[in-house]
């Protein structure tokens, strides 16, 4: 019983690690693509929510500098 529980725990741990590795690799490749993209054109993706929050992710190489990823959250002070 204890062995089975230990095996179940190890399987779960392995699956979670594989999932995290896959997501991390996906993020890595995505970031690499966005980085290359940001060298040629700036862009942003914005999500606005009913509560008044606006989330924006933008990137660009303003002024010829190295591109950066900017996460921006804004909200009306008195909605």
């Amino acid at each position: 019983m204890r062995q089975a529980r230990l095996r179940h725990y190890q399987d779960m741990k392995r699956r979670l690690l594989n999932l995290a590795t896959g997501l991390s690799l996906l993020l890595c490749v995505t970031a690499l693509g966005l980085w290359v993209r940001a060298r040629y054109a700036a862009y942003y993706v914005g999500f606005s929510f009913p509560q008044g929050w606006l989330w924006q992710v933008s990137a660009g190489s303003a002024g010829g500098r190295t591109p950066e990823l900017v996460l921006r959250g804004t909200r009306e002070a008195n909605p």
Partner: protein
Amino acid sequence: MTRVRRLILLVSLVPLVLVLAGGGLSLVEHDVPLIRYAMPPRRCFSVSIPFHGNLEIAVVTNPAVGPFGSVVERDTGYIRLTKQWQPIAGVYAGPVALSGFGVTGPRRAFVVLLPFWLLLLIAASLPTAVAWAPIRQRRRLKKLRQFRRCTVCSYDLRATPGRCPECGTAGPDPADANGVPDGLWGSS
């Protein structure tokens, strides 16, 4: 499986090489990074998709070389928003900047500024570690067998080469001269 692991390792190492090649050298440019992106994009091409409110995707192009040419349009909402931003406080942790905005304007905001090379470094670390683990394990086993040690508990097996007296693990096959069997990463 071996090829997959090698591919993961290769893909993970590419951004690291790029970081070392050029991207990481821009660390000194991040002394006052917050004002840089407060300036709105001059021209952009945007698509709005309903998503709880709106999902807006905009590609801002340089008018001189922009691929969208005459299709670009001015995003007045974005310009109006950014004009009201004023930095009030900032926390700088190396290249990462966190800041609150909006003292006088009707909006409150905060910004996280992350250089791509740092994002790549963080994202590539886990796949690299996972892909590197079997290589490291094989090197460790090779070294243990080379010095006639138990591969499980590192006990000295020179006196008892057949079986480890500490943990009972069978010793390396005497027929294998090198003491290292062909494994995942090929024999040396």
